[in-house]
């Protein structure tokens, strides 16, 4: 098939037509399909953590622990909420720079920072939780084993998280080099 034939087939592709009113509805964050999902999840998480913060003092023996330990518990939860919120803000901006390669490069840097931010936030959260719940507890054999088990589960969760981020970053790095390379090799 010659390129002129391809062009005529390409321009003859059927397309749907959207009315202005429908397009106007797409300009707000409220109707955005991805942001809507993230927002819903964020709201659920914030509500759940606010409930935990309201009841932990009596339910999880916060009153029997020193103020510093209570502060660590509260800060761990608040930083996790704050980090998720910055993720929501970052998901709004996908386009940076005057061309696609520059835009991908900026986006990649953002994703790399986010990967480390996400891992650090998770580590702070988990260590803070362990610190709070295991503070002053008599470490008998069963409790030590529980701590080891929780630690392993935590490390596995971190590994999954970093793998998820790394895969996304790897795909974008490959795409960027494919675009930059004249032969289109990855």
């Amino acid at each position: 098939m010659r390129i002129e034939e391809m062009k005529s087939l390409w321009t003859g592709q059927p397309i749907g037509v959207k009315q202005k009113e429908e397009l106007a509805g797409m300009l707000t964050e409220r109707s955005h399909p991805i942001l809507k999902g993230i927002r819903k999840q964020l709201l659920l998480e914030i509500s759940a953590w606010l409930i935990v913060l309201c009841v932990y003092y009596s339910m999880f023996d916060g009153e029997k622990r020193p103020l510093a330990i209570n502060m660590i518990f509260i800060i761990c939860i608040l930083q996790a909420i704050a980090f998720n919120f910055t993720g929501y803000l970052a998901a709004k901006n996908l386009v940076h720079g005057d061309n696609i390669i520059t835009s991908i490069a900026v986006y990649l840097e953002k994703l790399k920072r986010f990967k480390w931010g996400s891992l650090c936030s998770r580590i702070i959260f988990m260590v803070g939780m362990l610190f709070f719940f295991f503070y002053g507890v008599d470490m008998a054999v069963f409790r030590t084993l529980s701590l080891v088990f929780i630690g392993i589960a935590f490390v596995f969760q971190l590994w999954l998280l970093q793998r998820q981020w790394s895969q996304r970053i790897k795909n974008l790095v490959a795409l960027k080099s494919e675009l930059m390379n004249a032969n289109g090799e990855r």
Partner: protein
Amino acid sequence: MNEDQFLQIVSVHQGIIHKVCRLYRDTPTDREDLFQEIVFQLWRSIDDFRGQSKTSTFIYRIALNTAIAAFRNNRKKNVISYVDQVPEMPPANEDCALADCKDRLMAAIKMLDEGDRAIIALVLDEYSYREIGDIIGITENNVGVKVSRIKNKIRLLLTNSHEN
């Protein structure tokens, strides 16, 4: 630029967005989500558009950029798609052949890497190598080399699909 002017521009050039959605997403739901994402990103970027390039070039750049960078749901791909309208009369043989050719071309393009898809879409929409270079961020020469390689790839894919 106010909302009304923006909507007028998007309305006129929405064909570009539809094409990009078809190129980069497989299911109607994913295409609809991407369409919305592109319009949202265009609205956020429109103040950066200073008229140095054609409006359609700007829309193509943002649309391709969004399609490549946007988060995508890993939905199952074996989805049955329904056409909106069923024609009253069966299409003539010629129409069938034409529709078949269009489908085969689209299928072949979708088998390319994401970067190649962006370049061939721009070529087929008659953008010059210089404009394509500006959109992607590479030199005209680089575009030329890539285009000739992509054309060969598509020809090969079309030949293979015809033989099958």
